[in-house]
């Protein structure tokens, strides 16, 4: 078998990881992706997720050829990923699946959901996919045009429309818009057209300055710094979110806020949510590796 390629990959990744990745590359083989090229890109440090593409998906969506996309499984979905948009992480997949299980909206009272910094669209799209049709209308905002384009491609790929079609069948919907949620007038400028929300989700940039400088090359050389850097303290976006939540017209009674946080930020963010005075209960969910990963606040 491809001993030379395996040796190259092993040097970069260690033998166990190399064997797995070579197997996945083999599965993704296709006229436009040769094993040699994939290994060369990987050895140069590019994340595997950007490499393992599915040209058939590109064709399906009639994307221009230079928009080469990779893929990342996310729950039962297989999402497109493209640099520089942040690759969905397994920690995010884990808490979104748990959120989907812990809360079941019904078609009689569909919920409205806001996702701040939607990136690939992974969070709202997975919820739209898992919850019954006609139970959720989701809206994602992002500042990056690359992210917005990718989120729309993914919505098309997952068959989640942006508005209710002509059919009478119930459907979940997902819309996107460009906005800066750090801006003071974000609520009035960007959300004036929307009803209040029942759920706010966000995996905002949370890496503080000191840790940002130490990120591995596969992250820092390929993923958008604006998707990662959370200000000097790493908490800048959580302050913006707590200001937003304190706005009297943003949440419906009984709303839930779910925020992903960095490895050591859970208590700080929990305190921020608590201090808004909007919530009855807050809790912290662990990720599969035992890190405090998600702050959940309920009204």
């Amino acid at each position, binding site marked *: 078998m491809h001993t030379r390629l395996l040796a190259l990959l092993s040097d970069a990744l260690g033998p166990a990881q190399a064997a797995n990745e070579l197997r996945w590359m083999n599965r993704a083989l296709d006229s436009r992706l040769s094993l040699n090229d994939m290994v060369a890109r990987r050895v140069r440090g590019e994340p595997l997720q950007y490499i393992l593409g599915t040209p058939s998906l590109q064709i399906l969506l009639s994307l221009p050829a230079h928009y080469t996309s990779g893929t990342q499984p996310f729950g039962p979905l297989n999402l497109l990923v493209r640099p520089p948009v*942040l690759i969905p992480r397994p920690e995010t997949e884990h808490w979104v699946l748990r959120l989907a299980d812990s809360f079941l909206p019904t078609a009689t009272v569909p919920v409205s959901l806001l996702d701040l910094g939607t990136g690939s669209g992974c969070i709202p799209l997975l919820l739209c996919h898992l919850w019954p049709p006609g139970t959720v209308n989701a809206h994602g905002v992002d500042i990056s045009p690359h992210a917005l384009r990718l989120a729309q491609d993914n919505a098309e790929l997952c068959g989640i429309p942006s508005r209710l079609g002509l059919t009478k069948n119930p459907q979940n919907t997902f819309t996107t818009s460009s906005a800066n949620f750090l801006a003071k007038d974000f609520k009035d400028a960007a959300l004036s057209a929307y009803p209040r929300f029942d759920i706010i989700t966000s995996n905002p940039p949370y890496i503080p300055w000191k840790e940002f400088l130490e990120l591995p090359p596969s992250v820092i050389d390929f993923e958008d710094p604006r998707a990662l850097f959370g200000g000097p303290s790493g908490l800048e976006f959580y302050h913006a979110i707590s200001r937003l939540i304190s706005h009297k017209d943003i949440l419906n009674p009984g709303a839930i806020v779910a925020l992903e946080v960095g490895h050591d930020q859970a208590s700080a963010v929990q305190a921020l949510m608590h201090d808004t005075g909007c919530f009855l209960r807050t809790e912290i969910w662990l990720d599969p590796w035992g890190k405090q990963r998600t702050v959940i606040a309920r009204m």
Partner: protein
Amino acid sequence: MSSPEDIARLRQLKESEPLGNAWITWEQTRKQMEETALLLDDPDPTMRSMAADEITSLSNTLSDIIQNTFPSLLVPQSTTKQLSALLELKSGVGGSESSLFLSDMLRMYQRLANNASWKSSVLAKNDTEGGGIKDAIVEFKGEGAYDALRWESGVHRVQRVPATESSGRTHTSTVAIVVLPLAEETESHDEELFSMDDIKLEVMRSRGAGGQHVNKTESAVRLTHIPTGITVSMQDERSQHQNRRRAFQVLTSRLMDLKITREMEERRSTRRNLVRGADRSEKIRTYNYAQDRVTDHRIGLTMKNLTSVLEGDGIQLFIDAVSKHHDESVMLDLLEDKET
């Protein structure tokens, strides 16, 4: 008061009722035929020709009972008829030669599946450096896959000169196979088999800070079923979610297998001649290259043309023969039980 044994015995009697009835019909028809045969020598020619006609019709009835009634009575006894199968292969003695033979066997079963129109997919596989496979788990989806493959469980032995052996000396190596039942994958698992409280789920490697800090794929998971100590590790898929689903699938199969084996043991107390299917350390078959033969030790069947077996056609004959042998022993035991 009826004891659990009584209940089992009653259930078994009830299950064998249609078989008993068919046996009675068979016996009566046969007696009738013997009596009619006497009339073939009757002095009256009309009588003789009537007797001949009746014999023809009776022997048709008999062969119908043999060809259709009896076999059809055996089939419904299989409660596992609709199940798909998981096939686990593990290389045993013989090192790299065993791994090479394992990949030959894997190909053999995939061809067999192809012939039978089962959908096969490899759930997990560990390749070795020399082009062999250390172990693998393959799923065969399709009705009857489990019933057909279940008698493949056991130790398979190969005797051949390894491609790598320069002295031309024949080596003996083994591959161990376990075939497990595979239920339809449903969203919620079978409550009877396990409860989520009994499951320990671990993720394999540490990810440092994790989250946005890391974009390396770490998808390996391990499940432990605490009451039985069964563990399942999965790392073949790119996402944890997928690996977890597969791990649960394999765990469900192992637990279902335990359940089926237990039920078989319970019934076995009254049946004697069963193919010993549950003993998986038993050597069941030898593939001998020098003599171009395959021998199944349980039924003493030897077939020439080893290539045809490995191509998937010949293996079908073994599978048919072993499962026929099993069906026959079940029937024999039942009938013996009835007479005593």
